[in-house]
């Protein structure tokens, strides 16, 4: 019964996502085009300004491919977090019906997020197929690296959900958690390597960033995919990322338990 319910939730969410197809594609294409263009010009300006062929261990082409990959991976990892369905359930009292489901609420929400990610994954596959035609084959991308990257993306998606879940649960106490989610997005963009490769930070800063969870959201999957990590480094990274998943999962459970004690079923 649990499996059937989760499958139904997944397919229902995919169908819901595809019901606004024009919007979906206009937003995706414009966002991708603008971000790729800005990334291209930032990379060009940094290399022209530095006058060096290699910056932070990347040549200009490698750094551009890093940005291309991190933009696409970011869409898969972040999925639909800003829609904040968890906080909406709490505000509007919609959480009540989920409390009656035979599966934990967090699992239901994660499956819905995976469903929402389905159409985004199709988009990314379309864009990714176009990238080698437009810019050539990314250096360092091998079948082995791609496999490591896909596993790292799956871990990153779970970690992202587990990091944002307790933030959304703050809705039990606060009137609006949208700004907390945006804060998380800003911080993870910088500390996770979405705005710039982490190799551009100083060595001491990088050591700190490697211990924090943000790197495992974006930079780690991209570095795995582009062949910048050895299998041993990848394995260590996966362990650290999964460790953070465990920590965030415990934090989510604690916040959930405390929040549901005061949930009245009529929203706040």
């Amino acid at each position: 019964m649990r499996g059937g319910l989760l499958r139904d939730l997944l397919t229902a969410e995919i169908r819901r996502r595809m019901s606004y197809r024009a919007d979906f594609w206009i937003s995706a294409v414009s966002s991708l085009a603008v971000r790729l263009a800005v990334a291209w010009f930032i990379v060009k300006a940094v290399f022209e300004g530095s006058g060096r062929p290699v910056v932070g261990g990347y040549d200009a082409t490698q750094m551009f491919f890093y940005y291309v990959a991190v933009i696409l991976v970011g869409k898969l990892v972040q999925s639909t977090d800003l829609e904040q369905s968890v906080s909406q359930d709490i505000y509007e009292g919609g959480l009540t019906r989920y409390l009656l489901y035979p599966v934990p609420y967090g699992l239901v929400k994660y499956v819905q997020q995976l469903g929402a990610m389905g159409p985004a994954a199709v988009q990314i596959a379309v864009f990714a197929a176009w990238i080698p035609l437009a810019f050539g084959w990314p250096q360092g991308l091998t079948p082995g690296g791609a496999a490591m990257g896909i596993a790292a993306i799956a871990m990153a998606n779970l970690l992202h959900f587990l990091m944002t879940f307790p933030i959304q649960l703050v809705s039990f106490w606060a009137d609006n958690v949208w700004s907390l989610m945006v804060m998380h997005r800003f911080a993870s963009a910088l500390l996770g390597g979405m705005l710039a490769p982490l190799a551009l930070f100083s060595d001491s800063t990088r050591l700190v960033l490697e211990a924090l969870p943000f790197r495992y959201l974006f930079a780690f999957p991209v570095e795995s995919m582009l062949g910048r990590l050895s299998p041993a480094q990848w394995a260590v990274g996966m362990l650290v990322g999964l460790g953070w998943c465990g920590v965030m999962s415990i934090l989510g459970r604690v916040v959930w338990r405390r929040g549901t004690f005061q949930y009245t079923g009529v929203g706040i």
Partner: protein
Amino acid sequence: MEFRVDFWFRIVMDSVWYVVNFLFFWVLFRHTSVLGEWNYDQSLVFLGGVFVSDALHMTIFSNNMWWLPILINKGDLDFYLVRPVSSLFFVSLREFAANSFVNLLMAAGVMGWALVRYPGPLGPGSLALFAACLLVGVVLHFLLHLMFLLPAFWMHTSHGLREVYFSMTETMTRPAGIFSGWILRLLVTVLPFAVIVSFPTRALFAGNPWPVVLHLGAVTAAAFLAALAMWRAGVRSYASASS
């Protein structure tokens, strides 16, 4: 002040955005001495301009722009069309965001700091021109935002082309000097996001600021006429809740 926690969350959120942008530029300048046309000190002034421009937009226009497509989509625009004042003026300026006003003070502080620490000479005339151009840039930002939302009159969605607008704003937060070719031409004419803050900053540092000032004035005037024409066409096709 009705939602106090949210009030403070939003102030902290914008502060995080300032810090993230500042660190981003700092990281880039660890590896280069020039980004586009500006050095680190000039880029900090540009960044201060981005913060002030964004904070002014958030304080004066952003909440109103958030509600505009919803008003159109749900038919609530009726209540504004029947009032004896310009409906566009009213829907654009009716709400003031107090929490963003606090951020405006912080942004002005950052820009003041960037200007004070700037090692070159900056005369009062140049600073006054910079401030005036920055205000024109805020108006241009509002007009562009409006033009991306007005398609809600025809698109039957509750957000127009809001996502496209949000994507485009990234080009506003990077120096225009990094762009080149047809993308630069696009970003300073048809979709002049790169003009909003970069051109006021150019006016401050350029030997002869007047070509830049004229360009900024011309694209803002053109955007005003285009937004007005779109608004009028939209109101003509507006059919209350069925829009």
